[in-house]
């Protein structure tokens, strides 16, 4: 891994996991009225550790792939996450375990983290650029 961009790579892994979590939370919110739907989520810190544990599966492989994956294809740059089921707060007659308030809070929290990570990357890029230009 290039030492100059190592820091950015680390943030990129977090960014890719955050976008994956955003998708899972969107799926929970979308299925808030579906009978029998079980809400899903994953342990973010564990998934990040896993992604950082084997660097070959993350950024270096996506750069090597010239073709972009299709939207519905999980693709090589989709991080593998261990999806788990949420424990139901209150039982519902139709077996749905989505707690809309909790999902919305998680969604807002996740968006904020995504924006923060983006800002970290932008600042890292600015730092490197200022080092390159030397001004």
């Amino acid at each position, binding site marked *: 891994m290039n030492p100059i961009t190592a820091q950015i790579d680390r943030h990129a892994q977090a960014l890719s996991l955050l976008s994956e979590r955003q998708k899972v939370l969107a799926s929970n919110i979308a299925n808030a009225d579906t*009978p029998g739907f079980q809400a899903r989520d994953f342990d973010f810190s564990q998934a990040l550790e896993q992604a950082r544990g084997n660097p070959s599966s993350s950024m270096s492989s996506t750069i090597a792939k010239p073709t972009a994956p299709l*939207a519905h294809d999980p693709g090589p740059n989709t991080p593998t996450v261990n999806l788990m089921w949420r424990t139901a707060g209150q039982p519902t007659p139709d077996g749905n375990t989505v707690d809309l308030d909790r999902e919305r809070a998680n969604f807002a929290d996740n968006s904020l983290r995504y924006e923060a990570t983006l800002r970290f990357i932008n600042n890292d890029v600015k730092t490197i650029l200022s080092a390159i230009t030397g001004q």
Partner: protein
Amino acid sequence: MSLFNVFQISGSAISAQGKRLNVVASNLANADSVAGPDGQPYKARQLRFEADYLPGSEVAGVKVNGVTETDAPLRKVHDPSNPLADTEGYVTHSNVSVIDEMVNMISASRSYQNNVEVMNTARTLLGKTLQMGQ
């Protein structure tokens, strides 16, 4: 990029909730109907929602699996002067419960709003991602 799938997921939910609102509108419009096109009284309809899993993925959008007619008892009103009254003078109205339908409408409209908000957030985040490094 997983954020693109958010549009697919929330889009399917918006479409499903829109259909639910349509059905509510149909039920409310026919709350006082005496007879449907087949001569039988109108029966309230409900949509069946089903999780629609994205190919090769564990996350799901929503799809409408079908429409069911509710089997609540039909409402009978004593009105002997009505030409549709039976031999005992009762007219059979639809089985639409206006209260249920209003609750259904509010629930559908809130879910619709939630999914629009999810889509907007995903759009904002993608826009910011596009500006990354500039």
